Structure formats: structure tokens, C-alpha cells
């Protein structure tokens, strides 16, 4: 209940839509928060209406209700518009007039924004710790299918854990039949391996962008071009990452002749590793003859591996969403870089984004062995 007079008491009439005049301090008004909040609300409403499940008396049936995509898209659109307003206000930020520094113990002299990013990363650490705790609990709590089979207790309908690495890295059933263009590793591991390298390279390009933006020895135009180039490379690598991830999940790929492919990497979906795989056909061959199972040595079980798939897709998916969020930010940064927004005085924005990006990379360092290799 403020009793300010209710109009025009600011000298500078800041626009709640941006761009903002940062020489007067942070924005006083912004339409971004309310738009982003209600946008995400509508998006979630749409999400629950698009992805529906119905109880069929003894089991769920799942459907994608495409008639409701409107809500989902409208929510995203409103959120994006809010983000646009937010960034439009940020657009004029040049780090010279307004870059508040911390005072007092223990962050004295550090930019406030940098402290905030670290606080954000703390909560992100807890996010991924929660996911890993879930993984650990189920990984240690549910019997491994292969171990059960070795112990002779695997029967049809058993609920057990068949790790994603069974499909990706070791080959499992594919061990003998898997295609290995590189001889020493299965083709199915290649997208994940490339992704790992892509993230590391993108981590490197983002530090190079920072280093270049801080380089006072370069001319403005050259610096803008180089910073833009590095940021764009980062963006492209992130895009590559997501594309390979989707390929690995849903598409799979194949090079060369269909019967004798040079490279053959079926998708996890095609392999039957899905969150609905309550009756996955698990095959074990006791004796191989020239990449074919010997007569009478093939055992087939129908098992429930939904839990392994759920943890795999949700954990790697959460990581993927973080990569996507980084990509959205990178689009803004690439445009700003080519327009000359990043100068030695205002390079820190790249550093703060970089902190997030390295964190995403760091998470992948944990996700990759835990889900793809082990």
C-alpha cells in the first residue's frame, strides 16, 4: 500500500518493454515477469492436455492429443515473448554504466551477477543430485537382468534392470551381431561419444569467446567477428549435440547398403528400450556360431525394463533441456556479439553464460559414464 503519487514520478520514463537506459540503474518496470510466469503456466496446462493417459481397466494407454497443441504453443509463445521483452531490456547493457559490485564478506569486489550465477549453479547441483539419487536408488534396488539370468532366476514377466549401456555400449544381445565400423566399439556408441567430444569442444569455444572478447589488442570489428564466430560455433555444437541425441533416441542411422551397412546404429526406440517397454523381448544366446546363435542355444524372455528406460530418458532428457536452454541464450548472444555488444568492458556476460555451460558439460561428465557406459 504505497502512497506514492501514481504517475510519472520517474525522471527517465523507463519502458517496461525495453530497451532500457542502464545509466539509470536496473529497470524499474518490466512486462517480462508476468508474461513469462503465465506463459509457463499455460504451457504446463497444455502439456498435461497434450500428453494424456487413460486407464483401460488394467493398464494405462497413452495418447498424444494433437488437438490441444494450441495451448502448448500459446504458452511457449507467451513465454518467448516475455523472454524477448526481458532481453530487449538487456540489449543496451554495456557493462560500463551499471555493473554493481558486491560489498562485504565474503564476495567483496565480485560482480553481483557472478555471485547470482553461482547461487543458481548451487541449486542446479541439487537438481542433478536428486536425479542421481533416484538413479542410484533404482540401480542398486532393482536386480540386473543379466545377473538374474546368470543366477538362473530370470522368468517371463520379471521386473529387472537392463541398463542403457546394454543397448549402447556393450551391445548386449548385439554383442555378436552388432555392427562395429571402427572394429573396437559398437556403432551405437558413436553418437554418444561424438556428443561428449562436442560438449567439450563447445566448452573450449566459449572460453575462447571470452578470451577474445577481453582482448584489447584486437580492433573492434575484428573482435566482434571473432567473438561472434566462437559463440556461433558453440551454438552449432550444442545443436549437433541435441540432434545426435534425438537420432540416438528415436531415429538411428545407417550408412551404405541396407544388408551390409558400412555403419549401422539403430535407435533406442527401434531396439525396444522405451518407457513403455513392459514386455521387452530379452534374448540370451549361450553359444555363438559365426555371429549366429547356435541351434537351441537361444533363450527368450519377456521382461519389464521400464524403470531403466525411465531413469535414462528423464536424466539425460533433463540434461538435454539444459543444453536447449543454453542454446536459446546462445542465439541471443550470437546476435549481440555480431552487433558489437561484447567489448573488453562487457565480456563478463560471456563468462557468466560460460559458467552455466561448463556446468552442463560437467554434468555430462557424470551422466555419460553412468548412463551410457556402465
Amino acid at each position: 500500500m504505497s502512497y506514492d503519487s501514481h504517475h510519472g514520478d520517474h525522471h527517465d520514463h523507463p519502458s517496461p518493454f525495453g530497451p532500457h537506459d542502464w545509466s539509470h540503474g536496473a529497470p524499474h518496470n518490466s512486462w517480462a515477469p508476468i508474461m513469462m510466469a503465465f506463459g509457463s503456466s499455460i504451457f504446463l496446462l497444455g502439456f498435461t492436455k497434450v500428453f494424456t493417459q487413460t486407464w483401460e481397466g488394467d493398464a494405462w494407454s497413452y495418447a498424444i492429443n494433437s488437438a490441444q497443441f494450441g495451448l502448448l504453443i500459446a504458452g511457449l509463445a507467451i513465454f518467448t515473448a516475455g523472454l524477448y521483452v526481458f532481453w530487449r531490456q538487456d540489449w543496451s547493457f554495456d557493462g560500463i554504466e551499471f555493473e554493481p559490485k558486491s560489498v562485504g564478506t565474503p564476495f567483496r569486489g565480485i560482480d553481483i551477477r557472478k555471485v547470482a550465477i553461482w547461487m543458481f549453479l548451487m541449486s542446479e547441483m541439487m537438481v542433478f543430485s536428486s536425479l542421481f539419487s533416484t538413479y542410484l536408488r533404482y540401480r542398486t534396488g532393482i536386480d540386473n537382468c543379466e545377473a538374474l539370468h546368470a543366477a538362473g532366476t530370470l522368468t517371463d514377466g520379471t521386473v529387472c534392470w537392463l541398463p542403457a549401456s546394454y543397448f549402447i555400449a556393450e551391445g548386449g544381445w548385439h554383442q555378436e551381431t552388432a555392427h562395429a565400423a571402427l572394429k573396437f566399439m559398437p556403432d551405437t556408441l558413436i553418437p554418444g561419444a561424438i556428443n561428449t567430444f562436442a560438449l567439450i569442444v563447445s566448452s573450449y569455444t566459449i572460453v575462447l569467446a571470452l578470451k577474445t572478447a577481453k582482448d584489447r589488442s584486437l580492433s573492434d570489428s575484428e573482435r566482434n567477428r571473432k567473438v561472434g564466430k566462437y559463440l556461433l560455433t558453440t551454438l552449432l555444437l550444442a545443436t549437433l549435440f541435441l540432434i545426435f541425441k534425438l537420432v540416438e533416441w528415436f531415429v538411428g542411422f545407417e550408412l551404405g547398403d541396407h544388408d551390409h551397412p558400412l555403419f549401422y546404429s539403430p535407435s533406442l526406440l527401434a531396439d525396444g528400450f522405451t518407457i513403455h517397454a513392459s514386455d521387452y523381448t530379452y534374448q540370451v544366446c549361450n553359444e555363438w556360431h559365426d555371429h549366429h546363435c547356435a541351434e537351441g542355444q537361444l533363450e527368450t524372455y519377456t521382461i519389464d525394463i521400464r524403470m531403466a528406460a525411465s531413469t535414462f530418458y528423464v536424466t539425460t532428457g533433463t540434461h538435454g533441456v539444459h543444453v536447449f536452454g543454453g542454446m536459446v541464450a546462445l542465439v541471443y548472444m550470437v546476435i549481440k556479439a555480431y552487433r558489437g555488444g561484447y567489448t573488453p568492458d562487457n565480456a563478463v556476460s560471456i563468462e557468466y553464460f560460460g559458467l552455466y555451460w561448463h556446468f552442463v558439460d560437467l554434468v555430462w561428465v557424470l551422466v555419460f559414464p553412468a548412463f551410457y557406459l556402465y
Partner: protein
Amino acid sequence: MGEHGHHTILGFDRYAFNFWVLMIFTAIEVVAVALTFSMEGTVSMNTVVFILVAVGVVKGVGIAAIFMHLQGDPDSRVLTATALFPVFFIVIMVLFIGLTHPDAADTLPDWCRPGFYNLE
């Protein structure tokens, strides 16, 4: 950042050095797993897990210390402390949530389970 005389490690640009270390260690990671595939039986799964953990630690430290500037900058010490702050809470979470078992429900004697009303 780099203006404080910490640009180099062993004569290489620190970022480039770290980058190549990460690349090499990732390659080790992938090859370790590939060995279990191509030379089945030569490398035990325990060895692989050990390699994965060791490589993960090295890569994690490399990314945090050099790419995230937790080493060598004036603000590195305090930010390292910040970054390590949640460790206690993460340990609690992993111990309590990730590594406990609901074995109580299976191993408790009958008389301490719900539904046991045989009081006579």
C-alpha cells in the same frame, strides 16, 4: 582473468592445455568401455568402473578449475568455497535417498508389521 600471470600451464595456453587434457581423458573413457566390447573378457567391469570414476574426477576438476576459473583468479578461493558449499547436502541426499534400502519392510518380523493384531 588471464591478466594475472596464470595464462599458461607447462608453457601451453591454459585453456588449450585443459581442452586437450579433457579430449584425451574422454578418449580414454570411451576406449575403456570399447575394450569390454571388442576384447570381451580382457578387461573386467570393475576395472572399467574404476577408470570411469578416475577419469570423471580428472575431467570434473579440469572443467571446474580452469574453464570455470576456480583456480588462479583473485575470486577463485571464495567461489570454490561457494561451489563446494552444497557438498554436505549432496552427501546427505545421496546417502539417505540414493543408498538406503527399504529393507525394513522385508526383514521386519511379523509382529511389527501393519495388520498384525493378534494381541491375545
